[in-house]
């Protein structure tokens, strides 16, 4: 059996769930900055409050899967993305703390909201920088050592993907509010969706085009997997169109779920482009893989426990289905 491939699928699964789930609550956090009304901001935070914490656990799961199953890639990629990763960790921590403290204070709540929002934006940008850095390419020596500079990631292309990820998360966040909010906040979500969706699509398209120009590996992938990649690009555009048309209409969840579909397509496109590598265009899954028994242990553990975690998460989302109560969850 091809154990590294299974482990890669498991890690991709965790990463996809993370991007989709934390994506929307980071997006809501980012939109907090342009919501002038404090009462509305309270409602926005209420909308993500019950589930955001579980969402973040998938990030740890993805990171640790990489360590367990592809230690060589872990040891190349983490130093390569040292600065954005540390910025992301600190931003996520600060965001968690602000989440907490905004409820502790009445007078300076807006300061905590700024910290919350800036934390969300920095985390989103950092993740986008990492994706861009991956596509741009990481310098590797001796097949297992990062040989570039930690500043390599701050180049135009990763900055473009960073903006694109922030835009995408904002679409997800606005979509979530479209689903959960009523009254003026719902109107806000519609305005935001109309604003962010075209920006996101334009940025994503720019990322695709620029990627083929700066990275021969991406060009090669387009020749090799032209049909699936063209299909993904086409679907992306069609779904974006349907999303735009669904704004302000029933069902309320349509823009959000279509936004998730856009992200799923994005991850699939990225996966197809870099497969069978794990450090794009440099190190393959098998060259970076851990020992056989390490995969076995991780996969068996994952196979047994993941369904339980998923069942719990689905339950948590189910009990909070419907509109966020205007007076908050506590009442």
């Amino acid at each position, binding site marked *: 059996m091809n154990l590294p491939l299974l482990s890669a699928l498991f890690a991709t699964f965790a990463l996809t769930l993370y991007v989709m789930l934390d994506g929307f609550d980071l997006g809501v956090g980012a939109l907090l900055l342009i919501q002038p009304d404090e009462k509305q901001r309270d409602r926005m935070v209420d909308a993500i*409050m*019950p589930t955001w*914490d*579980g969402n*973040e*656990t998938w*990030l*740890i*799961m993805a*990171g*640790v*899967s990489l*360590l*367990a*199953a*592809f*230690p*060589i890639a*872990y*040891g190349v*990629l*983490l*130093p390569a993305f*040292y*600065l954005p990763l*540390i910025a992301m*960790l*600190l931003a*996520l*921590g*600060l965001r*968690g*703390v602000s*989440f*907490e403290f905004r*409820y*502790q204070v009445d007078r300076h709540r807006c300061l905590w909201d700024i910290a919350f929002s800036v934390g969300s934006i920095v985390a989103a940008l950092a993740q986008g920088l990492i994706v861009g850095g991956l596509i741009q390419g990481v310098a590797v020596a001796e097949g*297992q*050592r*990062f*040989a570039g500079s*930690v500043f390599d990631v701050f180049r135009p292309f990763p900055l473009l993907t960073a903006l694109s990820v922030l835009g995408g998360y904002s679409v997800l966040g606005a979509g979530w509010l479209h689903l959960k909010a009523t009254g003026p906040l719902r109107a806000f979500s519609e305005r935001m969706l109309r604003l962010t969706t075209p920006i996101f699509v334009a940025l994503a398209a720019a990322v695709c085009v620029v990627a083929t120009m700066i990275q021969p590996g991406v060009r090669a992938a387009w020749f090799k997997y032209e049909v699936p990649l063209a299909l993904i690009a086409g679907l992306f555009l069609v779904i974006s169109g349907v999303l735009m048309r669904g704004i302000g209409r029933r069902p309320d969840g349509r823009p959000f779920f279509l936004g998730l579909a856009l992200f799923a397509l994005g991850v699939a496109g990225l996966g197809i482009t870099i497969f069978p590598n794990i450090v794009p265009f440099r190190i393959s899954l098998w060259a970076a893989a*851990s*020992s*056989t*028994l*390490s995969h076995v*242990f*991780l996969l068996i*553990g*994952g196979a047994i*426990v*993941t369904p*339980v*975690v998923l069942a*719990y998460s689905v*339950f948590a989302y189910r*009990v*909070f289905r419907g509109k966020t109560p205007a007076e908050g*969850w506590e009442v």
Partner: protein
Amino acid sequence: MNLDPAMLARIQFAFTVSFHIIFPTISIGLAMFLAIIEGLWLKTRDPLYLQIYRFWLGIFAMAFGVGVVTGIVLSFEFGLSFARFGQLAGPAIGPMIGLEVLTSFFLEAGFLGIMLFGLHRVGPKLHFFATCMVALGTLLSASWILSANSWMQTPDGIALENGHLIVTDWLKVIVNPSWLYRLPHMLTAAYITGSFLVSGVGAWYLLKGKHESFGRKTVSMGTAFATVLIAGQVFLGDILYGTMLRHQPAKMQAAEGFWEKQSQSPAPYYWFIIPDQENQRNRVAIGMPYLGSIWLTHSLNGRVEGLKNTARDHQPSMGLVFYGFRVMYGIALIMFGLCVASLWLRWQRRLFTTRWFLRALVVMAPSGVIATLGGWYVAETGRQPWVIYGILRTVDAVSPVPAGALLSTLIAFVGVYTLFMTAFLIFAGHLIRRGPEASPAQTEASGSVKNAFRPQVMIGAERSL
């Protein structure tokens, strides 16, 4: 100034891991204490137990939250600052940490919400079950992490092929030679920490003449737990000492402060040294005569082995190991003395009125945390220069990250963590000053940074019924 990346990476890791361990130590101890208190409440239905439970739940939630947020950072730091370590050790420690995430994060995330807010929603029995599951989650988490760390101390169950580490036997990796002793040692340390924390706060109330019955109950229970636990810890510590002497002689040589291959006879027990690693000697050494021979060799004139028995390039830095050990051991001795005093005072029925004793308890409230940190300094600095003992040296594990980047992120970590600590202390101090009677029926969301909002699950469940 010329900055050494290896040193900066080590300082950064030391800072973030030291900061982190404070909070799990508190939350492991308090989770067990809360489970016991709630069990007693269910059994006796004495409302005092419920009040104690609610009061400590608030502080537990805060410690837990900070522990989670700072723990996430560590799982990335293995690769950020020590890439070669991640690459080599990943096959062994990666799956263990993966299983930690899956098993204990799940238990904790699933039941912490019910524990924090769910009492009136699920009823006392199911709530007690939730408390026990959270306590079990902290215990499982500690078990996986201690297993991973003990594997770094005494690696087993692996083979090296072409510079790659291959796991050959998972049982040997997980149940490695030091894990069996280090796990109970750490758990007991956390439980002692909880006991002193609880009795310290109770003693403060008694000194202030406030919340009398709360103070009496918690001082009584805290000192009773501490007495039993410290007796066990002496025993566990002694076995662990013997185990580490066999596996990592250099660590224990450094811990005792002797340099010569054989110390003088009778050997003193040093409490203060100024080591001079360069010249392999102590500039100053002050100790109690005979005590070294008696404690370490169980004879009146036995000699103790010094650090020169270990080749110079394989020696840990004596100062860190020695003082880590002295802090841990010194505090343990004071704890032991206080526990003996508590037995005497209890017998004399003066446990709640002896002011010097209560004052001592207040001062000792955070002592468990400091002793645990001391112990971890022995474990981690004593393993140097190795990061995986005998397999990979720390300097060879460092990532190719420039010193400037390491320094700026270190400063950022110090700044942000200072904010976390300040907030934790302000909110914990606030809860303590306000007293147990003000504890709300439902603990506020205040404490937990990450999981405190989980309980809405229960509200939602009620609504959907």
